[in-house]
């Protein structure tokens, strides 16, 4: 039975220690973490999840390469604004069971939530293992991620993340397939990593940004990521 985590009983780990440890996770392991959120994940074996995650990452990186050429040295914010995308920075509390960092509202509005940035800046250890020290750097990562979703919408008739489907059911000759929603997230992370020149998966921000709200919840999340990543041993 799905249960809400009781974070009051979780021992809190040091943030830098957790981030440093997550730096060692491979793309495949982050892919498994992304699939743990996929509503139809039961349809895929572990090797299938890893294969699809790799394809989504390639898709994300390829779009990052194209965008780098088009942006030609402009910041992501400048590029987004030139493309007619409105970028808003809003404060929003996010200390529930889901912490919201950023959103893209089709067709052209991106919202970055300041609250998580403020908290991250406050808690991020100086000289941390991931090499991020300023809120602007985190905001840029969030913006890049949402920018991929804008590109996804622009290219929805051809992009891998929208075209790759899984057959959910069939009745005789009637078959129904649907896209796999987590592939867009995996591709957006690979896109962001490439575009921002990060040495780590942006998924790592899940732990960093949750920590600002609730260190025990971040510890619980960190342990969950390691547990899911451990499934790679099942291959």
């Amino acid at each position: 039975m799905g249960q809400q985590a009781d974070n009051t009983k979780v021992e809190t780990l040091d943030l830098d220690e957790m981030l440093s440890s997550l730096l060692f996770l491979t793309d495949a392991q982050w892919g498994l973490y992304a699939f743990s959120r996929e509503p139809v994940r039961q349809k895929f074996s572990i090797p299938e999840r890893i294969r699809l995650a790799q394809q989504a990452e390639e898709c994300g990186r390829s779009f990052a390469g194209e965008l780098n050429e088009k942006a030609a040295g402009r910041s992501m914010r400048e590029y987004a604004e030139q493309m007619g995308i409105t970028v808003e920075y809003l404060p929003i509390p996010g200390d529930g069971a889901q912490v919201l960092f950023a959103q893209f509202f089709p067709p052209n509005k991106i919202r970055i939530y300041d609250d998580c940035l403020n908290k991250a800046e406050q808690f991020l250890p100086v000289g941390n293992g991931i090499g991020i020290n300023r809120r602007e750097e985190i905001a840029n990562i969030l913006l890049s991620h949402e920018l991929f979703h804008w590109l996804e919408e622009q290219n929805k008739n051809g992009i891998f993340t929208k075209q790759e489907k899984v057959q959910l059911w069939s009745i005789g000759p009637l078959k129904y397939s649907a896209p796999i929603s987590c592939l867009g997230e995996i591709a957006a992370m690979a896109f962001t990593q490439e575009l921002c020149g990060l040495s780590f998966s942006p998924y790592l921000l899940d732990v960093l940004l949750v920590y600002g709200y609730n260190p025990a919840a971040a510890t619980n999340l960190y342990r969950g990521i390691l547990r899911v990543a451990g499934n790679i041993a099942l291959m």
Partner: protein
Amino acid sequence: MEIGIGILMLLAYAGLVVYTFKGGSIQIGFLIITVIYTALALIGNNFISSEAFLAANAGSVPANIVEAMTNVFQKGAESYGANLVNVMFGAWFGQVILETRIAETIIRKTVELDGDRPGLTMILLSIICTLIFSGIYGAGGVIAIGVIVLPILTSLGIPKAVALFSYIASVGAALFINPVQHNQWVTLFGIGDTYSYQQFFNWGIIALVIQIIILSIFSLIYLRKEKAYAWAAQTDVPSEEKPGKVPGIALLAPIIPVFLLYVFKIPVIAGFLIAGFFAMAVCGKMKRFKDTAYLFSKNFHDGVVDVAPFMGFLLTVGMFNAAAALAAPYLGILLNGVNLQSPLLVCALAGILAPLALFRGPLTLAGAGPATAKILTTIGFSSPFVLMVLGTTTLSMHISGCFTQSWTAWGIGYTKVPTNDWLKKSVPACWVFCIAILAYTFIVYGSTAF
């Protein structure tokens, strides 16, 4: 002088409404108004009322304090005993449906029917949750299923407020045919022998369908405006554990009590036991007698703990009902001049004023509404008709749209939807639910109003 007592009683009712609107404990609120009604009735009966008045109301005017306290606090609370037993077994059954992973499996299978289409998935999950909650009862079940449903909906890009409203309103719709809900209300109105579950179901099933259709329309409108991609982290990572061996036939378990009661008139507790043990047996939870006994006992304990605060409230409602019977002659005098003898007017007023069911106000039977119900029945409306009218505002406005409902308060905390966002999403839709269902109630059942 009886009018003076009646006015004081009406003021006490207004005080209860204000108190509940301000977020006061409704359990204490009902206890206080019970004491006030009882004291005023005793004062009236012993010192103020005329011989003619007392003679005209001979059946409901106890003269001494012991008799009044016996009727109100002892017999009033005891009158809810049978109802509480139903609530307890409903809560046990809910725990069984969760423990056997039947609810989780139903939800996962529903999502796998549709995959990535958020609107359709949301509507299908609303229908499925309505079916599940038509049989089970208790906040624990709503929370336990909510932690499965809500992350699924939000992971599909559905805004949290829309996802939460869709879920909570589907629970509200389910109660239109829930046997435990029926039992509570017939106890409240004292019509357990004359208003059968079949009659309740025949009215409620159409109300349920109306609510789900309107909910689906509103959900799609909200989604059209607000579909978003979101980067959000959940603070827990779902287990990779398979849903477990839940055979297809087990998925019927949540609706078995309703089916048995409606079709074969099998009493609801027997229905809960049959369905609960059926679920445990087909899901492999009855392999050893010792384990079965432990599970039965554990689920009963967990279920009863889950509904304990609610049972406390019901007991004070039982006392209030008895006190309201003492107060009825005095309120009746005041209401003699009220020309509200039109079912159309009552339905129209309930529809227009439906938001008064929010914040435990006078139009919800889970708030100050039992007092309103007494006033309406005192005027002369039939109890089943008042049950349908106030039942609609209770389920479609209060239960579906108000965060003073325990599981809605939990949902708002879980998703961190700002309360003003919640009200913006819930109130317009709930108002339309109420108006549509009250229109249907008037058209089909208006002739039974007296």
